């Protein structure tokens, strides 16, 4: 093999890159749906970290945590999309900025 | 329960790679050819039911008709509508056809799984399973692939940039996502009974000695028919076969999601549409009807003969359903999925769980079944009557439109 063996650290670096991209996306995008997708991206980066540590430390607890993250993500998407639908139905072109109207 | 394919036990070299590639090619070609015959078979049977002759020009009995149609499709002009989202439009047919192929990879194809025929073939001195892949997650792979199959339909409809395909794909999405839940719960009942996920271990269990030597140990009997019926109906809906083919209801939606497609891109949707019954009947036979297991009446090929015979029965049933049942209305479709199939499959899952717990704890089997029937049935009945009462009250108060 010409390539070096994979170190767990590679997975962690990849995960932190994904997390950073998701965070930047959350900060710069204005479409609520895309912002939501960026949150999912960050969640996925975290699950990748969990699985990597699970293998590194030879402990199933990390994988169990991922299972719970998945469930929470599902619940979060259900409610979050419900809210976004409720907003977009009234104002089809709403962006995150428009929500400041709630201040009155 | 799970064991690795003997092919990969001594490391992976050139021979192993070549054998794997060969298995992939065989599976792929056999599936493609069987699609050609499936189309012909479906047209012939339906035309028989409708007092027509059906295809009879190309080749003997019109067998080559599909081939001729395919040639025609390839040489037709490939149109891309001006308002289409080009990239997604070109991508969607592939997303539709690949999942249809993938599911077949985990169907065991041969061997009766008796002691002297354990479903292993020897190719050039290497032993390997008679299935393309046996992942440890087995059934979950089926669920995963069938859950991504929705993308092809959905993106095809959206990217066409036209009203009817969009409506068709929104319908399809709602339908497939709804029925996936029922399908998943019925599969959970199956996993609860067999205690394993790998399709191969499932076939092994089903090939073992059944009740009183005559009735086979098939999952359809062991789980008590209901999960199978739910799985079958959900599979029909997942495949978008009639009576659940609302996404291409001609009277309402022209051609549904593939209205704007032409030439070979349409051909891909067509292939996917006719491959789904084949792969799905393979999955149904593997999960519920013992796969290729059976008496060894035909020597070394008895496994594949049994598999094909069982699959053929289901293909015929699929065609019969297409030829006889009228299409569901959209609200009926949703009612069936959410108000009947999901509660029923959940209740049956609880029942099977109770039986399993009872077996472990050494309770009386008959009593366990009786008590759990009473408890589950009573709870369901109470919830149902309460829900009906509440909805009646609210109707009287005029809170909701009927």
């Amino acid at each position, binding site marked *: 093999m010409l390539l070096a063996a994979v170190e767990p650290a590679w997975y962690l670096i990849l995960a932190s890159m994904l997390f950073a991209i998701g965070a930047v996306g959350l900060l710069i995008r204005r479409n609520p749906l895309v912002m939501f997708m960026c949150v999912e991206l960050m969640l996925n980066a975290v699950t990748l970290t969990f699985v990597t540590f699970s293998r590194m430390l030879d402990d199933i607890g990390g994988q169990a945590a991922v299972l719970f993250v998945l469930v929470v993500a599902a619940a979060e998407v259900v409610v979050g999309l419900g809210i976004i639908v409720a907003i977009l139905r009234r104002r089809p072109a709403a962006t995150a900025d428009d929500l400041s109207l709630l201040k009155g | 329960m799970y064991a690795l394919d003997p092919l990969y036990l001594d490391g992976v070299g050139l021979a192993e790679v070549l054998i794997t590639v060969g298995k992939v090619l065989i599976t792929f070609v056999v599936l493609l050819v069987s699609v050609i015959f499936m189309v012909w078979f479906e047209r012939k049977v339906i035309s028989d039911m409708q007092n027509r002759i059906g295809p009879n020009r190309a080749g003997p009995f019109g067998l080559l008709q599909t081939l001729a149609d395919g040639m025609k499709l390839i040489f037709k002009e490939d149109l891309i509508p001006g308002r289409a989202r080009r990239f997604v439009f070109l991508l969607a047919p592939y997303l539709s056809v690949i999942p249809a192929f993938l599911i077949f990879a985990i169907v065991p194809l041969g061997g009766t799984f008796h002691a002297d025929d354990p479903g292993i073939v020897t190719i050039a001195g290497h032993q390997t399973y008679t299935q393309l892949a046996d992942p440890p997650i087995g059934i979950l792979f089926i669920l995963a692939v069938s859950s991504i199959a929705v993308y092809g339909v959905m*993106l095809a409809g959206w990217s066409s940039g036209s009203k009817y395909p969009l409506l068709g794909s929104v319908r399809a999405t709602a339908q497939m996502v709804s029925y996936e839940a029922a399908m998943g719960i019925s599969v959970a009942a199956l996993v609860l009974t067999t205690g394993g996920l790998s399709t191969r271990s499932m076939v092994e269990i089903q090939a073992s000695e059944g009740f009183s030597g005559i009735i086979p140990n098939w999952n359809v009997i062991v789980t008590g028919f209901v999960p199978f019926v739910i799985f079958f109906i959900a599979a029909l809906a997942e495949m978008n076969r009639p009576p659940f083919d609302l996404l291409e209801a001609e009277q309402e939606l022209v051609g549904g999601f593939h209205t704007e497609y032409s030439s070979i891109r349409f051909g891909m949707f067509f292939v996917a549409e006719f491959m789904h019954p084949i792969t799905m009947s393979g999955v149904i036979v593997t999960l519920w009807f013992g796969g290729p297991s059976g008496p060894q009446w035909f020597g070394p090929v008895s496994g594949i003969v049994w598999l094909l015979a069982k699959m053929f029965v289901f293909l015929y049933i699929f065609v019969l359903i297409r030829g006889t049942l009228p299409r569901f209305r959209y609200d009926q479709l949703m009612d069936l999925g959410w108000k009947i199939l999901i509660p029923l499959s959940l209740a049956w899952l609880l029942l099977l769980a109770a039986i399993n717990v009872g077996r472990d704890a050494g309770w009386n089997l008959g009593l366990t079944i009786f008590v759990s029937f009473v408890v589950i049935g009573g709870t369901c009945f109470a919830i149902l009557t309460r829900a009906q009462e509440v909805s009646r009250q609210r109707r009287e108060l005029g809170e909701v439109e009927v």
Partner: protein
Amino acid sequence: METFIFLVAGAICLVGALGVVLSKNPVHSALSLVATLFGIAVLFVAQEANFLAAVQVIVYAGAIVVLFLFVIMLLGVDQSEDLDVEPIVGQRSAAFFVGIAIFFLPVIALASTAWEATGMEGNLGRLSDGGPDIEALGEVVFTRYLLAFEVTSILLVIAVVGAVLLAKKSRVSEELEIEGLYEPAVAEPSEPESDDAEADA
């Protein structure tokens, strides 16, 4: 072999992640997200988390992103966004620096830590006992984490109820509709809202 898989899957993940952030069209963002999810599922398989990989595909790709796309199509909010305008001056560069910081924080922590330092072994159950990951996972979830597991089921029920309430038309909007003040842009989003909750349960 694992190096090759890691490089390919990691590249898919990164390209997908960039696609989510940089695509003008929300549908393209969602498709890029699917690519990332698949890449992560492959990385799960590479790390012997087969069950989680399958669940990742079923829940995320099969339910959550489908739900996203469904909402986008249903509401017709699929027009491209103009990304050239920067609503708050300096926001992008600030976000970029925050992102760099977020990336380097774990990396610095990683570089400055010796992993064998504590010498602690996992006490929940070994991965390397030989059994499939799903069995070890099932044992942990249904014994030690049973309470957490039950709580997540309650969470899912709450989410379903919340989604139904949000999707229901309120009386106020109905009255406004009669007066012609409020026009719902599209039809009611129906059952699929609650679906992935069901699929998980």
